[in-house]
Structure formats: structure tokens, C-alpha cells
């Protein structure tokens, strides 16, 4: 959008004349129906008119992507189609002394190949495989070829975490970091790290788009984000998808050979993934109404308290969690609970990390991203719809992450096994088998 640019107008005009920029209408009309060219919105409910001080007319604007600034009928969208900021081409930009595991190395080579050949590739890496490092060589290959790279992820905290990491391994290039509220507005950085939402700002801008956590994504749900990814890519470009748990459709497409994929079936520390254990716990919701916890859960928690092992207990719903907390606190007063809207969320996670909390009850909010070194994990009510296959694999993936404590227990307490539970267990089993076959596990 014109208003977002920090470059003077004359310079924009110059770039335009050189063919480095193109203008598009913010909103166009197709078959009498408006369509927002930034977010792809076609739903009439999300358009409205306003008396516009700029064009002096009743101007149509898109409400769906309003949080990124208003796109209206008189707003031109600007896209950068010129080369990225000059870098010393043909010289490696990567400054990293780490080494890749065997599994990472194989995947890394596939990434380089896909980027060089402008192809699509899915990297299916188990939780704790170290997927970020797998991208380094591929990003380097793109940069040395003068390509623009975009790394998109659904969550702002991941953008915040990845930015310094990538800046440190690519110290000499311009890195843009975009998320709601960020100030970075570099049009032509060589490497852009962004939330998927901010991806809507770009039009045919990238030679390589890397999409992180495709499973966590609203991507599979939200049409506008699919549109954004599509719009942000150049016509001839490569696309790398990263996931620990592809959904059923993607898994099938991989197995049928419709999707090119590479797996990293083992963790960096060469220990197998902990296998989930199923434990029937009866009608726990009914028990809760009488303020009773399933005895199996009580035993499970007690055992961990006695042996001083920290644990996470996943609960499907907030209201259930609020009922459980006082009951379970009778076992230990320092037990805490956390959910998405908890204002003390950060503090509680830090306290857990500092071992000040013995047991932390949580909703699926801690399903991914967070790592505690030496914990056991249980799910209460694993049969709930919220625990999809990928959620359960992610939850199991919280256990045994660190090399010092590579094992731990994961238990699914349930009132009736579900397909998702069985598929999750099978997925983990298959990954361990594959890793063994390939010699990626030592223990």
C-alpha cells in the first residue's frame, strides 16, 4: 500500500518507470461483484462504503483486511517486482558453524534442490528434529542466486524468535521482520520473515516462500491466507512447506506420490520419539460434576509429585480446567493452570521453566512451541474433538526434547479411543521405524 511506504513519492515514480514496481487497483469489480486484491475477499458482507476525503466519492473498502490499513477503491496497491537489494552475488552469505544430523543433512539437500529448480517440497520433520537449521543451506542457495526469500509462520512469537536467529547466520543481508504492529517496512529485503497474515502485503514478490507449521495454520481453513501465499509468490518460484504433523489429506498425497516430500524421522539427539500410552479413565466429565477426579489421574499426578518430576496435563476446555484446578491442588498447592487468555500466561511458563510449578494444567495453547527439558505429559479427555491427530502428535512431541533428558512418558487418558488417537500413535510409530531403518537412532 502506498501509505506504508517510507520511500519518497518521486523515487516510487522512478522505480515505476524502470519497471521495478507495478500498480494494481486495490479493489476491482468482477461480474458486478467487488473483490479485494490484497486479501481476496469476495464476500459482500465484508465490504462497506464511506465518504472518502481523498477521491470525494462514496468509496468502497474492504473490512476483512482492515487491520493492515484500509484498501479502498481509490487505493493503488504497489508491488515490488525489481531485484532485491544488492548483495554480493555468487558468494555464500551463510555464517554458521553448527553441523546437521544425518537426517537434517538429507532434507537440507532436498531443500537446496527444490529452491534451485523452483519446485514445491514438503519437509515432514518430527518435533525436535531441528527444522530451522535444515533451511540454512537452501536460503543461502537462494540468496547467492539473487533470489528473494520469504519465511512465513502463523505465529508472531515464532517471527520474533526466528528473526535474530536468521540475522545471526546471515549477518550481511537485509532481513525484514513483519508482524502486526511491527515497524519494518522494507520493500526489498533479501529475506523477509513474516506472519502469514502480513503476507497479504505482497504481490508476486518472492522467488522462494517457506511456510512454517502448515498444520497449525489457519492456512488449511482460511481462504484469504491461501490466496495470500499464492499472490506473494512469483509465477516461477519455489515453495517449501514445513510441518511436524501434516494433515490426513497431505499425508495421503505424499504417500500417493502427488506431493514431493522429505522426512526427518528422528530427533537431533538420536533417541526415538516417546510412544503414547492409552489409559481409559471412565466418564471423567460426569465425575467432575460431583467434584471427583478419575483415580487414574490422581495416581498419575501423585507419582510425579513423589518423584519430583514436573509434568504438563492437557485439558480440552477452560471451564473443565477451572473445575479441575482446585481439586488437583489438594495434592500440591503450587499446581497452576494456564490458557490462551490468561494475562499471566508468560509468567506461568517462566515459573514452570524455573521449576517453581510442579504440575501445569493447560489447554492446547502449550501444544507447540514451548519446551520444558525434563517432563512427563498427560492428556485428560484425549477423546475430545479438539485433540486432532496433529494436536496429539504435537503434545507427545513435548516429551524428551533435550539431549540430557531424551525420554519421558506420554499418556492419553480417555473415555473411548478415537481415530485421531490411533492415527497419532501410528504416525509416531512409523516415524520411529523409519528412523531405525535409516540408522538415525542409536538407542
Amino acid at each position, binding site marked *: 500500500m502506498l501509505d506504508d511506504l517510507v520511500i519518497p513519492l518521486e523515487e516510487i515514480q522512478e522505480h515505476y518507470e524502470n519497471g521495478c514496481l507495478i500498480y494494481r487497483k486495490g479493489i476491482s469489480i468482477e461480474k458486478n461483484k467487488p473483490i479485494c486484491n490484497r486479501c481476496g475477499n469476495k464476500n459482500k*458482507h*465484508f465490504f462497506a462504503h464511506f465518504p472518502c*476525503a481523498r477521491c470525494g466519492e462514496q468509496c468502497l473498502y474492504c473490512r476483512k483486511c*482492515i487491520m493492515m490499513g484500509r484498501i479502498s477503491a481509490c487505493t493503488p496497491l504497489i508491488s515490488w517486482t525489481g531485484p532485491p537489494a544488492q548483495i554480493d552475488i555468487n558468494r555464500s552469505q551463510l555464517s554458521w558453524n553448527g553441523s546437521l544430523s544425518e537426517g537434517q543433512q538429507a532434507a537440507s539437500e532436498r531443500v537446496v534442490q527444490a529452491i534451485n529448480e523452483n519446485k514445491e517440497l514438503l519437509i515432514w520433520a518430527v518435533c525436535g528434529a531441528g527444522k530451522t537449521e535444515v533451511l540454512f543451506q537452501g536460503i543461502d542457495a537462494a540468496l547467492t542466486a539473487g533470489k528473494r526469500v520469504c519465511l512465513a509462520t502463523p505465529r508472531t512469537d515464532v517471527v520474533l524468535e526466528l528473526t535474530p536467529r536468521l540475522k545471526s547466520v546471515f549477518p550481511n543481508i537485509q532481513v525484514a521482520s513483519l508482524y502486526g504492529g511491527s515497524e519494518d517496512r522494507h520493500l526489498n529485503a533479501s529475506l523477509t520473515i513474516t506472519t502469514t497474515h502480513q503476507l497479504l502485503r505482497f504481490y508476486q514478490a518472492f522467488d522462494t516462500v517457506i511456510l512454517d507449521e502448515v498444520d497449525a495454520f489457519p492456512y488449511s481453513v482460511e481462504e484469504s491466507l491461501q490466496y495470500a501465499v499464492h499472490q506473494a509468490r512469483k509465477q516461477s518460484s519455489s515453495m517449501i512447506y514445513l510441518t511436524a504433523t501434516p494433515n490426513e489429506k497431505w499425508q495421503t498425497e505424499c504417500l500417493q506420490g502427488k506431493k514431493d516430500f522429505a522426512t526427518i524421522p528422528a530427533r537431533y539427539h538420536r533417541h526415538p520419539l516417546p510412544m503414547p500410552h492409552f489409559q481409559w479413565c471412565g466418564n471423567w466429565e460426569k465425575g467432575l460434576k460431583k467434584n471427583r477426579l478419575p483415580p487414574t489421574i490422581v495416581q498419575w499426578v501423585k507419582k510425579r509429585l513423589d518423584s519430583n518430576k514436573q509434568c504438563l496435563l492437557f485439558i480440552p476446555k477452560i471451564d473443565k480446567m477451572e473445575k479441575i484446578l482446585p481439586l488437583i491442588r489438594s495434592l500440591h498447592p503450587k499446581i497452576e493452570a494456564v490458557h490462551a487468555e490468561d494475562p499471566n500466561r508468560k509468567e506461568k511458563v517462566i515459573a514452570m521453566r524455573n521449576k517453581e510449578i510442579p504440575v501445569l494444567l493447560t489447554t492446547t495453547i502449550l501444544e507447540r512451541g514451548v519446551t520444558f527439558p525434563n517432563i512427563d505429559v498427560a492428556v485428560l479427555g484425549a477423546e475430545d474433538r479438539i485433540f486432532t491427530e496433529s494436536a496429539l502428535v504435537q503434545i507427545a512431541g513435548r516429551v524428551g526434547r533435550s539431549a540430557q533428558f531424551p525420554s519421558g512418558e506420554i499418556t492419553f487418558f480417555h473415555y473411548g479411543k478415537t481415530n485421531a488417537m490411533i492415527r497419532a500413535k501410528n504416525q509416531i510409530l512409523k516415524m520411529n521405524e523409519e528412523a531405525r531403518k535409516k540408522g538415525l537412532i542409536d538407542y
Partner: protein
Amino acid sequence: MIIEHCLVCFSEMMPQMGWTTLFSKEESSYMCTECYAKFEKIEGETCKSCGRPLVEIEPQFKAGNRCLDCIRWEEDHEWAGTLERNHSLVHYNDFAKEVIARFKYRGDYLLSYLFVPLIKKKLQLISFDAIVPIPLSEDRLYERGFNQSEAIILACGYQPNNLLTRIHSEKQSKKSRSERIHLSQVFQTKINIPNKKILLIDDIYTTGSTLRHAAKVLKEAGAQSITSLTIARG
């Protein structure tokens, strides 16, 4: 206008939901019950000058039915009696902040309708001859595309009376309270308005200095009294 989706969260609204009767019958409502509940309505006794709820003010910061801020304004000869009283609808809580920012800074014009039913109800209690918006500077108007205060007036079905213009534009938000108060006059008016009762409309009342500056100019132009109505009270 028929609203099928909540203007704030886009969720579909069931027209038969009973709470709409809270508003006058013929008024459609523009937000869902969940969003409506997230606004904290200003109720009960308020400061008779600025509309701030008295229960929220510590005893040492109020006297009688006025808050200390307003008492300070009224003790100042330059400002005494400029703004007769302010009415505000909701507290400026995080949710209101978010929604007003989306309206004003992101430019979601349609949100000007959000409080129409509540504003209309309030207007029944205020007597006025003209509704006057707080003007924006030209730069600001171009940047935003519309004047939020005018938008609210239009949404309520009134014609804004543009009696005021801005003399110069300065980023008020970057200034401290005293700097803002002592800022030389920012508004002007070219017409005389003898004995008119004026109602000023704005989105938020924070220190009250913007509204008082506007009121002062109108008073000097002959207005009989100036009251104000804002959506939020900071």
C-alpha cells in the same frame, strides 16, 4: 441498513435474539451480545462536568459531585464555564481501545454505526440547536480519509455543522497534559452563533482539553452553552 453480521467480530447475528429490545424497537443493533458485553457501560452517578463515574474516583480526588480535574478547570478564569458538561457512553478499556483504533486509525468507517442506538438514547436527554464535529487537520483528514467525529454524527442521522476549523496541526498525543492545556488556541470559527446551544461530538474524552478548546472558541462566538458527547471516557 440491515446488519446480518456483528460489525466488530463479523459473527452472524440472530435477529430474534431478545437483547435487541434493550435498544428502542425500531433500531437494529450493530454488534453481537458478546461484543456488546465487552464494553463497560458508564452507569450511575458521574462527575457533573466530565461524565466520569464518581465511584471510581478516590475520595481525595473529588469534591461533591465533581472530580478534581474539573474543579481545576473551573477555578481557572480562562476556562471556567466553557464546557458545560460532557457525556460519555463507555469506559476506555482495552476492548474499546482496540475498536476505536480500528475505527479511527485503520479507517473502518462502518464502525461509526456501532453506538448509534446508545447515542440516540443519550441525545434525548440533551437539548441542543446544532451538532458540531471536532475538525481534523487537512493532513490528518487525507491520511484517514474521513473525520471520525463527523462519521458518528452522520451515522446518527444528523447533519454535522462544521462551525470549527483547525488553525494549525500539531501532534497532540505527543505532548504532556500541561503542554496540551497551555497550547495556544487550535480552533477558530468564522461565524457568530448568538444564543445557540451547541453539542460537540468526539470519539474519546481523555483530558478534556480538545473539547474545552473547541468550546471556548464557540463561546467567544456567542454560543449560549456547549455540551459534549463522546463514545469513550479515558
